[in-house]
C-alpha cells in the first residue's frame, strides 16, 4: 500500500533545494525550507511554502544539525525529509533518526547507506556480487611505513580515498613513494574535517580512466532499473565539472554489461530509492566498480533530459511506497544531454572561490536549454557553502547539436558581481579533444596545466578597447558639457594628469 506524502522538509539549500521545491510544487506537495542566518532571503526560502530558521551560517551550526532539523520537521508536521545531496544526504545516522521519529527519509534505508557509505564494505559487497574492482585496501594513517609498504605492493600511482568520503573531498593521488606520505596526511585531514572520519584506503590508480556512472531506481517491491550512464570524466581535483549522457564511448553491449553490474550491487545491498553506481573505465574499455552514491547526484538532470523521467518525482513516489511505473524495457534514451556546473570560482586563478553579490543575472533559455539555479539577481554567494550555484543543462538530437547548443547557451549567460566558471566552460566546448569525445579524467590537467588559458581572443580585446575608449569619450564629453566647455581639448594633459593623481588619493585605487 502506498501512503501519499503531503509535506516535505528539504534539508538543504541552493540549487538542489530549489530543484526539489519545484518537484513538490508540481506534485501539489507542501514544501518546507530550512535556512541559516546567511540564507534569510535565499531563493529556496522565498520559493518554499514554509520556511524555518535553523541556526547560524556555518553549516555545522545549521544545515548539519540533525536534531534541529528533526525538531523542525515535527513542528511543521512534515511527512518526509528530502536531504538533497551533500550535508546529511549520506548520513546513515540521520536516516535512522528520521525513521525513529516516524518521518520518511527520502533515500535508501539507513543500513544501505551505512553499508555503501563505507568504501571498504561496499567494495567487499561488490566483489561478492561479482563486480570487477581495482586492487586496493584500507590503511592505517598512523602507521606510515606499513601504509607505504601497502602502496608499494599495489604499485604507484595509487589513489588515496576517504572511506567515508564523497564529492572528491579527502581524495589524493600519490605518484610515487616520495609524495605518498604528505598526500596521505592531507587526504586524511580533509576527510576528518569534511566527514568527521579520517580513515582512508588506497587503490590502484588508472592512468587515463574514464569516470562513467549508472543511474539506478529501485522501489520497495523488488523492482530495479537503470537509466543509462553518465560520462563524468571532465573533473578537476576529483570534482566533476561537465557531465553528459550518453558517454561518447558507450556501446550497447557495454551499457548492458555495466547496467547489469550496477543492478547487481543494488540488489545485493537491498537498495531502495535513486542511486548512482560509479565505475572507472580503462582505455581498453574494461570497467571497475568504484562506489555507490546513495543519493540524488548533482548531475542527475542529464539523465532526466535523455530519458524524460523526473528523478526527484520518482524518489518521492518510491518513498510513498509506490511501485515503479516502468520496467527496464520501457526506458529509452533519446538524444544527448550535457551539463556544465556553474560555480563561483575564478578558473584563471586556479579556481579559487569567488564571493560577492550577484548583480546582473541573465539566464540562458530557448530550445533545449534547462537551468537549475539557486540564485537570482541580488543573491549573495558567501564563503560558507559550496561554490556551485547553478547547473546549465542542454539537450540536442546528438552530441554535436548538444555541444553547439551548450556554446550558444553559455554565450547567453550573464553574471556580474563575481567570477564564475562560465568562461572556462566556453573554452572546453571549443576544445578539440572534448569535441571529439577523446578524453579521460586527466583532461583538465593535460589540456590546461596550471589553468593557463585565455578567455578573450585578440579581436575581443580590441573590441573591449574600442568600447572603453568610446565610453570614456562620452563621459568626458558629458563632463565638459556640465562644465560649460564645448570641447575637452581645453583641458591640458597636465591638468588631467594631476586630476587623476588627486582622484586616486580619494578612491584608494592602485
Amino acid at each position: 500500500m502506498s501512503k501519499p506524502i503531503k509535506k516535505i522538509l528539504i534539508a538543504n539549500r541552493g540549487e538542489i533545494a530549489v530543484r526539489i521545491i519545484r518537484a513538490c510544487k508540481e506534485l501539489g506537495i507542501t514544501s518546507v525550507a530550512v535556512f541559516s542566518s546567511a540564507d534569510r532571503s535565499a531563493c529556496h526560502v522565498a520559493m518554499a511554502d514554509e520556511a524555518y530558521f535553523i541556526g547560524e551560517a556555518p553549516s555545522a551550526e545549521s544545515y548539519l544539525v540533525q536534531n534541529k532539523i528533526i525538531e523542525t520537521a515535527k513542528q511543521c508536521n512534515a511527512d518526509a525529509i528530502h536531504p538533497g545531496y551533500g550535508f546529511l544526504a549520506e548520513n546513515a545516522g540521520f536516516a535512522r533518526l528520521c525513521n525513529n521519529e516516524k518521518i520518511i527519509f527520502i533515500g535508501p534505508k539507513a543500513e544501505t547507506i551505512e553499508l555503501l557509505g563505507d568504501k571498504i564494505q561496499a567494495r567487499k559487497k561488490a566483489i561478492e556480487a561479482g563486480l570487477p574492482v581495482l586492487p586496493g585496501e584500507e590503511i592505517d594513517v598512523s602507521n606510515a611505513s606499513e601504509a607505504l609498504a601497502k602502496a608499494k605492493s599495489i604499485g604507484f600511482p595509487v589513489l588515496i580515498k576517504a572511506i567515508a568520503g564523497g564529492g572528491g573531498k579527502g581524495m589524493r593521488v600519490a605518484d610515487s613513494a616520495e609524495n605518498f606520505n604528505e598526500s596521505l596526511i592531507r587526504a586524511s585531514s580533509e576527510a576528518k574535517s569534511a566527514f568527521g572520519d579520517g580513515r582512508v584506503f588506497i587503490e590502484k590508480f588508472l592512468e587515463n580512466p574514464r569516470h562513467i556512472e549508472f543511474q539506478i531506481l529501485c522501489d520497495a517491491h523488488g523492482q530495479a532499473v537503470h537509466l543509462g550512464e553518465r560520462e563524468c570524466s571532465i573533473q578537476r581535483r576529483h570534482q566533476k565539472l561537465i557531465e553528459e549522457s550518453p558517454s561518447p564511448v558507450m556501446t550497447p553491449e557495454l551499457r548492458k554489461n555495466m547496467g547489469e553490474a550496477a543492478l547487481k550491487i543494488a540488489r545485493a545491498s537491498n537498495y531502495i530509492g535513486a542511486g548512482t553506481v560509479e565505475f572507472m573505465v580503462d582505455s581498453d574499455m574494461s570497467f571497475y566498480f568504484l562506489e555507490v552514491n546513495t543519493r540524488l547526484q548533482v548531475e542527475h538532470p542529464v539523465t532526466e533530459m535523455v530519458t524524460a523521467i523526473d528523478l526527484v518525482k520518482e524518489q518521492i513516489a518510491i518513498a510513498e511506497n509506490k511501485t515503479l511505473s516502468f520496467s527496464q524495457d520501457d526506458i529509452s534514451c533519446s538524444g544527448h544531454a550535457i551539463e556544465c556546473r556553474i560555480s563561483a570560482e575564478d578558473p584563471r586563478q586556479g579556481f579559487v572561490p569567488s564571493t560577492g553579490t550577484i548583480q546582473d543575472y541573465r539566464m540562458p533559455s530557448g530550445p533545449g536549454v534547462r537551468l537549475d539555479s539557486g540564485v537570482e539577481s541580488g543573491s549573495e554567494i558567501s564563503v560558507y557553502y559550496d561554490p556551485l550555484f547553478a547547473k546549465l543543462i542542454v539537450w540536442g538530437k546528438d552530441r554535436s547539436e548538444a555541444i553547439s547548443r551548450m556554446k550558444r547557451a553559455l554565450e547567453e549567460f550573464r553574471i556580474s558581481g563575481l567570477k564564475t566558471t562560465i568562461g572556462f566552460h566556453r573554452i572546453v566546448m571549443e576544445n578539440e579533444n572534448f569535441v571529439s569525445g577523446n578524453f579521460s579524467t586527466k583532461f583538465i590537467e593535460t589540456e590546461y596545466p596550471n589553468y593557463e588559458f585565455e578567455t578573450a581572443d585578440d579581436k575581443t580585446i580590441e573590441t573591449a578597447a574600442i568600447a572603453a575608449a568610446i565610453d570614456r569619450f562620452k563621459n568626458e564629453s558629458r563632463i565638459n558639457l556640465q562644465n560649460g566647455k564645448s570641447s575637452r581639448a581645453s583641458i591640458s594633459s597636465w591638468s588631467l594628469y594631476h586630476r587623476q593623481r588627486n582622484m586616486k588619493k580619494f578612491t584608494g585605487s592602485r
Partner: protein
Amino acid sequence: MAHYLVKSNGKEFDIVVKKSGDSFCVVVDGREQTVQFSSSGKSKSVMLVDCCSHEISINSNGYDNSRLVTVGGIEVELEIDNFRLAQLKKAAGNSNSQAASKKIKAPMPGLVLEVKVSSGEKVESGQTILVIEAMKMENAIKSSAAVVVKNVAVSKGQSVEKGDLLIEFE
C-alpha cells in the same frame, strides 16, 4: 576628438575617437571604423563596429584608468589613458607597476590551515607556501617564482578576509 592609449594583457591600442552624427568614427592603430553605441538598461550597451554586433558592459569609476569591459560575456581588464598623458608618463619613467606586488594576498576569505614557510626562507617557484580552507576545500597557495620570504603576516588557525596580506617577499 580624443586620443587614447589602451593597454590590455601586454597589447597596446592607439585609439582616436571622433563623433560623427549619431555614430563614432574610431581609428584603431590607423584603421578607421564606424561605431554605433547604444546604452540599454543598467550598465549594458550594444556596440556595432562596422555593423558587427557586440554586447558590452563597462565597469569603471570615473577618472580612474582601469576598466573591466565585458564583451559578449567575456571579461577583459584594461587600462585606458589619454594618449599624450601616457607618452608623458612613459617619458617620466613612471615605474609604479614594477614596484608593486611583492606580496601575496588572500585570494578568498577562509581559514589558514597551515603556514609552510617562515621569514627569511627561500622558496622555489611552485612551492606550497600556505594552505587556506574555504568553502570546504583546501586551497594550496603557491609561489609563482623563486623568492625569499620577508614577512609572514598570518598564522595557523587564523581567519582571513579576501585581500588580507598573507606573505611579503624581499
